[in-house]
């Protein structure tokens, strides 16, 4: 341990005020919520300033904020790196598409049901799969997502198969009027807010402590009275619920959906990268990660048409090397230990 100063006996360590500003504990507890509310109002205000195309881009950022937050619950807090998260996204999307076009449900009914169906699916696969750890869990969930894509492709009567399915948005088959750019902007914003609030509540409550304990050591967590199996399955279901809602909204926005798009492994990978770069197991991390990565991706796409994925990939690699624990976790540690050197950080976390 190169940086930490060891104290051989437990002596009193004076508590240092990190920022130097005296704040009451209550104010400190409320601060993130106030910040969140300001951010939400800013997002609402921003809407009127955007062109149509920009509105879609920002809506996509909101979508990824919600997805990254959802992945962070199971992958960040509980430490179960799910590589099949897109399965819940696809299930939510396809459930909504089928519910509207075959069963003529309103989108507003199909939306919450999609979340519930995705959560049920997460529960059913979670009970056996959450017994696996590390790489095994990652591979098993990846397999589930790939399998689901094949299942959906091979049910053409219900899902339209590889040819896709179109949600009726005009004429008498339409159950709910298309929401348009404005509507989807607001809906994705609402989902992002929901996901951030859920993340914030989890982080600060008893539940979050159980998940972090499970992340570090399941045996020790169980010895403290935590029902680890129940906690993990609940978390997986909650994560699946939010992801399902987002998938449902995405499907309605796209109107026509295909298995390759709705079960695209890249969506899972993006969620994971956003969480890792921002800081897994924090609320701010996935939020910042999603905004930064989507923004950067769009910026590069506009300015370096040919090379944008190459440059984006390089930036991600450098970011992960310099900040393996994510930006938010790095800042927290740096502020506590007063050690801001990135080189020292690399050394501390290298394998």
């Amino acid at each position, binding site marked *: 341990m190169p940086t930490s100063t060891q104290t051989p*006996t437990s002596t009193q360590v004076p508590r240092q005020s990190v920022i130097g500003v005296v704040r009451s504990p209550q104010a400190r507890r409320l601060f993130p919520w106030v910040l969140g509310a300001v951010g939400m109002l800013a997002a609402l205000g921003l809407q009127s300033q955007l062109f149509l195309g920009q509105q879609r881009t920002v809506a996509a950022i909101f979508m990824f904020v919600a997805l990254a937050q959802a992945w962070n619950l199971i992958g960040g807090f509980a430490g179960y790196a799910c590589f099949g998260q897109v399965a819940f996204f696809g299930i939510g999307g396809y459930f909504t598409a089928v519910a509207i076009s075959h069963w003529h449900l309103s989108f507003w009914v199909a939306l919450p049901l999609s979340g519930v169906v995705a959560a049920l699916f997460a529960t059913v696969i979670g009970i056996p799969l959450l017994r696996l750890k590390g790489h095994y869990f990652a591979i098993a969930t990846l397999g589930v997502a790939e399998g689901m894509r094949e299942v959906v492709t091979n049910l053409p009567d219900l899902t339209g198969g590889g040819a896709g399915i179109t949600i009726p948005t005009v004429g008498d088959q339409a159950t709910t009027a298309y929401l348009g750019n404005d509507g989807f902007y607001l809906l994705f914003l609402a989902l992002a807010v929901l996901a951030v609030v859920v993340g914030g509540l989890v982080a600060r409550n008893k539940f979050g402590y*159980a998940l*972090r304990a499970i992340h570090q*050591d399941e045996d020790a967590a169980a*010895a403290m*009275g935590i029902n680890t199996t129940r906690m993990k399955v609940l978390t997986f279901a909650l994560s699946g619920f939010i992801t399902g809602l987002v998938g449902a909204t995405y499907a309605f926005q796209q109107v026509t959906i295909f298995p390759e798009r709705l079960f695209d492994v890249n969506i899972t990978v993006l969620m994971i990268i956003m969480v890792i770069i921002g800081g897994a197991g924090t609320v701010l991390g996935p939020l910042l990660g999603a905004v930064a990565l989507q923004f950067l991706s769009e910026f590069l796409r506009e300015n370096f048409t040919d090379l944008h994925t190459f440059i984006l990939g390089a930036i991600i690699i450098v970011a992960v090397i310099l900040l393996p624990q994510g930006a938010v976790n790095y800042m927290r540690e740096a502020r506590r230990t007063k050690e801001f050197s990135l080189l020292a950080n690399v050394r501390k976390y290298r394998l």
Partner: protein
Amino acid sequence: MSAVPVLETRGLGRNFGGLRAVSDVSFSVPEGQVLGVIGPNGAGKSTFINLVTGHIKPSEGRVLIDGKDLTGARPWVIAKAGVARTFQIVKPFRGMSVRENVAVGILYGPQGTNVMSRALKDADEVLEEVGMAGVGDRPPGELSVADARRLEFAKALALRPRLLLLDEVMAGLRHTEIEPSLELIRSLKARGITIIVVEHVMKAILAVSDQVLVLSQGKILTSGDPQEVLRDPRVIEAYLGHRYAKRREGDS
């Protein structure tokens, strides 16, 4: 004081493949007693603790806690029944402060609470009790060996247990660091907590135990009064080999 022992095992055993790690362990610990468990490396001491706390399921026999059959129950069920344990290899929750580590036990223990602020306040009390006041804000990775062991102790105490199983909480400590741990065990005993101490430090076992149980090759070798047990030639043989035991016998 009830007549029902806090912990009773009947013919408890566990096989790992062909290896009988623990077999036919039957004994009971009355309320308020300190039981010392000793035995050479590989005698099955840790397996025994894991069997009682549900971390390993027994192949045979029964575990009764307060007279209730909890054989094969999951670890959190056992914890909720008032049984707390420490781990031989310390298992702190990294990424949480020392205070939060202890708060987990208060939140999820038998008397669990949902109030975060209260759990954190109670955690400070537990830390003070084990002599760790003032380090609550630090990450467990920065603790000294002695404090890391003490944190294990504090996490177990956070459950407010009726039965406490200590798996080598004094291993690797200096003599000056052992004394506070012994003092703590005595004060917990005075509060009526039943304690099982698994330890290699013989001096520590002698200092606190009412009864000693000697395990060897997974079986009970002998049990009883600490001083008598340590004079038992079979115990000396188990620890130091039969040649040494023979020589000692010849001497006396």
